[in-house]
């Protein structure tokens, strides 16, 4: 039998039970949690992509190409090195804050179309937010599900300017959605 270490660096093609195929280099095989980690980007690329796959989820694993010449821990070009825990903590905090901001722009439990309409409006008008499942623009205009042109409501009187703009945006967005749909169908 061969040392497990030697599996490192192999270019492999993994088909999971859902027949989704992942290709890349074997980065790690962990028997302690029964997973396989694949590096899916090219060696010299940065940043890198990885995929951790649970072994029980693998239907089939196939080697592509030859045995790598560098199949040992020592020769990997990614080797664990010092991790500054503070830095990790800091990064985590920053990204949580950033994500929170983004999160506000996502409707909870809304349809994909609704989100698309929101995004399109947000592109043009920065002051757009979700209130429950309604889109509120400039605290003036409301778009309710299912977010068609008919669903645009004015909250306060006398803001016709913005309403026409929003109508046009919503209209165009739906056209685009239908086009995309048609393309999908074909």
């Amino acid at each position, binding site marked *: 039998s*061969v040392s*497990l270490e*030697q*599996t490192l660096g*192999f270019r*492999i093609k*993994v088909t999971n*039970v859902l027949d989704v195929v992942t290709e890349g280099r*074997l980065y790690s*095989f962990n*028997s302690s949690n029964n997973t*396989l980690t694949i590096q899916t980007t090219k060696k010299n690329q940065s940043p890198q992509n990885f995929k951790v796959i649970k*072994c*029980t*989820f*693998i*239907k089939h*694993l*196939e*080697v592509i190409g*030859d*045995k790598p010449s560098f199949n040992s821990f020592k020769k990997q070009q990614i*080797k*664990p*090195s*010092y*991790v*500054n*825990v*503070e830095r*990790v*903590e800091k990064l985590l905090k920053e990204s949580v804050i950033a994500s929170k901001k983004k999160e506000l722009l996502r409707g909870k439990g809304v349809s994909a179309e609704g989100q698309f309409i929101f995004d399109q409006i947000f592109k043009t008008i920065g002051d757009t937010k979700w209130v429950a499942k309604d889109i509120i623009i400039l605290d003036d205009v409301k778009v309710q599900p299912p977010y068609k042109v008919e669903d645009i409501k004015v909250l306060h009187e006398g803001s016709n300017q913005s309403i026409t703009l929003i109508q046009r945006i919503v209209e165009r967005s739906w056209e685009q959605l239908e086009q995309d749909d048609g393309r999908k169908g074909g």
Partner: protein
Amino acid sequence: MTTTSTTSVDGRTSSTLKATLSASGPNSNGPTPAVLPQKPKLTGWAQAAAKALPRQQQQQQQARKDDSVAVQPANTKTKTIASTAPPANIKGSSTANGSSTNKKFKRANKQPYNREEVRSYMHKLFQSYTAGEKSHSMKTYKQVLSETASGRVSTATDWGTVSSSKNKNKKYGCLSDIAKVLRNQ
């Protein structure tokens, strides 16, 4: 008494040393016009010093060098003057001293992976989430599943891959193709 001389230390005149230091900018790694002409000189000097030594002495030193295990590796190439950091700094505290040490190390060797520290941090982090589930409006996937329609239909987590395929009961079953290649090399 044995004196250790390196390329980074020029002991002939203090003025030279000063020049070197003042010349090196805020980032001592950056080259400045004043540094470059200095460099061959040092190289040449050390080269000559090496030659001036009798051969046997060199060999002895070589031997001694091999026997000794250095407390810390030092990168003699850097222009910064080595300040010896207490071992605690290896753990990566953010004091000025510590970071300068790290910096010095950056070129020579990446610092070794701090396994225990990473593990304990990750452990704490995970604890903080799992212990305070409610505070983050935390839901587990199981809960999510039970709330959806499909959840009521029991979902098998085991896809039967292990029991059905030829890799049954084999710990490294999915790696069989790799094993084949390795054996045929």
